């Protein structure tokens, strides 16, 4: 088990390094002078001073040298300055946005897991019934409709037509902080974010549940006289959940994609909105810093999923 974790850790580290190379290359491909990222635009400067900074930052060095210098700075948290918001360090911008995004995504994830697993079980147990067909069609529509459209529709119906949800933001401006206010702002975007993931989880859950329900030990449990509810919840569910765990890990990327659109429609002050605003204003240091942080998070989540999977399933050969 320990060697497995160590090996996965090493692989994750390699991926992280590769990711940093990718980000660095993209950063240099981006139009504009990389020096813009490092100087405070509020301070006026002469050409000689610029050249001095260039030399100090090592921008006159060959690319591989520059890469290692950049990597060293990035590793200590120095991702440069935002071009758009003068003098603000990229890392600060990114860090203050992580919290809201995590809150939104975690709520969405919990909702989609509960919803997806519950509807998946119902679909498998009542196979080919009207409920099952209805749920499957709904899941197909959920997978096919893009997050920005569901966000617009949700905003239109719940905020404009029924007026039961606030139309955006994370807190009511000017009002004192309260948990209730936060929840009122959170629930609609989180629910909309969960749709796509829930639909995917439901399809996998249904398929894997159907497979498990056909196995001998389930028949044995039924033959022993175990009540149907306990057969499903205690005997079948545990094994059926295993493939779904890996799926949940791999849908994180999809959830981040969805979160970008949801945040931009609902003006939710998270990483997605930061990223979209940065792309709109071509604020490359922020784009690359955010990409690096998001990529690192995805690698970490995949790592955790793999380890969880190995820990939960005794059949996995830990080698």
């Amino acid at each position: 088990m320990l060697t497995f974790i160590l090996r996965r850790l090493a692989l994750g580290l390699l991926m992280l390094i590769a990711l940093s190379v990718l980000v660095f290359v993209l950063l240099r491909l981006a139009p504009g002078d990389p020096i813009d990222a490092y100087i405070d635009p509020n301070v006026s400067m002469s050409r000689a001073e610029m050249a001095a900074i260039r030399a100090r930052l090592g921008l006159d060095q060959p690319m591989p040298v520059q890469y290692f210098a950049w990597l060293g700075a990035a590793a200590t948290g120095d991702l440069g300055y935002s071009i758009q918001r003068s003098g603000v360090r990229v890392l600060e911008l990114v860090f203050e946005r992580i919290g809201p995004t995590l809150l939104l995504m975690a709520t969405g994830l919990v909702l989609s897991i509960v919803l997806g697993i519950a509807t998946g079980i119902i679909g498998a147990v009542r196979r080919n019934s009207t409920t099952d067909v209805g749920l499957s069609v709904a899941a197909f529509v959920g997978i096919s409709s893009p997050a920005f459209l569901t966000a617009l529709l949700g905003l239109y119906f719940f905020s404009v037509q029924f007026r039961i949800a606030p139309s955006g933001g994370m807190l009511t401006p000017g009002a004192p902080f309260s948990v209730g206010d936060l929840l009122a702002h959170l629930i609609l975007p989180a629910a909309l974010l969960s749709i796509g993931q829930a639909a995917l989880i439901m399809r996998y859950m249904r398929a894997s549940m159907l497979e498990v329900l056909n196995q001998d030990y389930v028949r044995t449990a039924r033959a022993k006289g175990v009540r149907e509810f306990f057969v499903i919840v205690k005997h079948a569910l545990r094994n059926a959940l295993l493939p779904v765990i890996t799926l949940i890990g791999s849908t994180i990327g999809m959830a981040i994609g969805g979160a970008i659109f949801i945040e931009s429609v609902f003006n939710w002050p998270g990483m997605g909105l930061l990223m979209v605003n940065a792309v709109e204003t071509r604020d490359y240091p922020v784009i690359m810093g955010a990409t690096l942080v998001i990529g690192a998070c995805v690698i970490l989540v995949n790592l955790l999923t793999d380890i969880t999977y190995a820990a939960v399933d005794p059949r996995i050969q830990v080698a």
Partner: protein
Amino acid sequence: MVAIALPRSNGPLARSLSRFLSNGAAVAGLMILLPVLIAVLTYDLWWPYAPNDIDLRALNKGPSATHWFGTDGVGRDVLARLLQGGRISLLVAGVSVAISLVIGFLVGALAAFGGRITDGSTMRLVDLCMTLPPVILLLVLASIAGTGIVPTIFVISLLSWPVLSRMVRARLLELRERDFVVAARGMGANLWHLLFRHGLPNCIDILVVYATLQIANAILLEAGLSFLGLGIPPPEASWGNMLNAARSTVVLEQYVWQWMFPGAALVLAVLAINFIGDGLRDAFDPRSDLN
């Protein structure tokens, strides 16, 4: 058993076709997509308005007998823009899928036939491309490439080949060990011959299914980019940049026809293409007869 006793059974292609046609969802998808496709391709022959015609007497008018889907803020006909937008969306999706098919097949073939080092390094590159969430990579690439039809096609096609190259590689690795390929090699067939006489025909099912599903995906990617204002810039119409109008509160609340129709067209097209793609996948799979 019965099939053997018959004098002549249908070929694999005919059987695939009959499997496809007996799939209700796939046929329904085809029935939805074909009229949409015909309408999008021929609209300028039968619809009186052009996508950028301005009618100053009809600003923000709702659906009526003259403007079936209403008009937008500067008096342009929404139906005409929707159909033109469909053209652009399908053009972007079609071209980018074609490009990513070529890249995906070539990279996959290179990995399968190029020896261990090439294989290892290309597959690690694919792993890396699949680590980042696609939308993030899309935004990063779009920020470098800029807006417009050509950059959008470039960005989307650059994004969608890794999954395909993996599938092609798996298929070709298996194919490489087959007797007829070994025989062809023994007779001195070069890489070109192996790839295009033996590899390509044996990957055709993967390519067709992937292309179909990826067109739906590319339509969504294009719409997403344009929705954020990073894809197709106005005044050119696309389903995504028509939805972009709904980011203004007034349009969202009061002129619903301006964004709900393009949204519906988008979902309908994507659903139909997904149904067809799933149907094709089942139809190409000889084992699906067993169920």
